[in-house]
């Protein structure tokens, strides 16, 4: 084996250069750390993607209760009910997940389209689980109440149900009376609601049952400061306001005159 650094061989050039410049191999932890960071980024992107999916699913699901407002011809409304902010976040999360997975040691073995599919399925799958656990709804309510930037970009649906000037309000029943009840509206205001003698019920089957802690929406007219006369009261499954409390144990009234 040649072993002479003075000769002009590639071996001599490289070893002399390494020696003179004091070059040393990067430590093993450097490579382990890099791999861990890449996996951490992938995990973080997955978590963000799951949350974005949960919110997208929740908001899309809530749109079902706005069937009267959504018409394909009314593009403004259609545009407002699509959860763009969360879909964009989901897209970014998928992009970074795929990018991070590609950077792992074995990542290049997989075609990008498979990694995209994996990231989407994993995020949407976990998002569905989170949504089923009520995490999507809870986070949406929290953001609507606490994050000033959120309602202007995503608060169309709650706003749609809080148009007292048009006779439409929604909230949670906090106290039941024999012919009236008190409701905490989505915007935080309290209303004492009396039932109109001409009450009608166009609620879906079973959705006219209300009681303390139940989220309701109603159609009627404001009869004074904080008082309201309702013609129709149905259970509310849309966005915004506090979560439903436990089902009423005692008194409840049916949405009939």
């Amino acid at each position, binding site marked *: *084996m*040649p*072993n002479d*650094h003075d000769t002009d061989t*590639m*071996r001599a*050039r*490289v*070893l002399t*250069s*390494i*020696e003179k410049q004091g*070059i*040393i*191999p*990067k*430590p*093993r932890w*450097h*490579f382990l750390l890099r791999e861990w960071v890449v996996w951490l980024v992938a995990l973080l992107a997955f978590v963000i993607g799951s949350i974005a999916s949960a919110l997208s699913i929740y908001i899309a699901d809530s749109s079902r209760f706005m069937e009267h407002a959504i018409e394909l011809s009314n593009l403004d409304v259609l545009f407002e009910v699509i959860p763009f902010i969360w879909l964009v976040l989901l897209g970014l999360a998928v992009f970074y997940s795929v990018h991070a997975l590609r950077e792992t*040691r*074995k990542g*290049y*073995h*997989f*075609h990008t389209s498979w990694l995209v599919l994996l990231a989407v399925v994993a995020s949407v799958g976990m998002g569905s689980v989170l949504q089923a656990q009520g995490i999507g709804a809870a986070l949406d309510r929290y953001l609507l109440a606490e994050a000033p930037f959120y309602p202007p970009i995503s608060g169309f649906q709650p706003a749609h149900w809080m148009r007292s000037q048009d006779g439409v309000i929604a909230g949670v029943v906090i106290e039941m009376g024999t012919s009236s009840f008190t409701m905490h509206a989505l915007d935080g205001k309290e209303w004492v609601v009396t039932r109109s003698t001409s009450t009608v019920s166009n609620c879906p089957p079973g959705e006219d049952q209300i009681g303390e802690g139940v989220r309701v929406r109603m159609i009627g007219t404001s009869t004074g400061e904080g008082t309201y006369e309702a013609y129709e009261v149905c259970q509310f499954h849309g966005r915004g306001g506090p979560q439903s409390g436990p089902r009423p144990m005692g008194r409840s009234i049916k949405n009939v005159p």
Partner: protein
Amino acid sequence: MGSVTDCTNETDEQIIARVPTDREVFGYIIDRYEDKLRRYLRRLMPGLQEDTDDLLQDIFVKVYVNAHGFDTSLKFSSWIYRIAHNEAVSWLRKKKVRPDTVELGDDEFTTFVESADIARDFKETRLAKDEVKRVLADMSDKYRTVLVLRFLEGKNYEEIGDILTVPGGTVATLIHRAKKEFSSIYTTHHAERS
């Protein structure tokens, strides 16, 4: 300088594992890969010539610095070719040069034309070595690289995938497209000459 461990009978993988604690054994890696990588670099970037040694030195230093990063699930040759390839691509980007011809010996020319099955597309035409070299030089870097790795370096699909960090299926697609590009450029050259 102390005595150097005799690694003559050790595999590349065994030697690279020793490198962080015994710098001198890295000489074995240099000896084993100097000619292979020099040839590979000249095929990839024929304009290199006088810079080959500098680039080769940079590649070996990079291999030394990253010795702990060798993925033992890979063949060592794939890993060192990957480093060489990445350095070559960086060098090409930096210098913004294009090759005008590719280094190709007589035996290599025959091997290339036969194994790449390129002659089949040119039954009526006798492939000329100089023409093939010019066509290779005119090809896009991506496609020239896969043809060089597959038909001149003799790498299999898995090794090419490991070197270029692409899936095996993509390698097959790249080779297919590279052959098409080769045929297309060769036809154009031939028509211009006629």
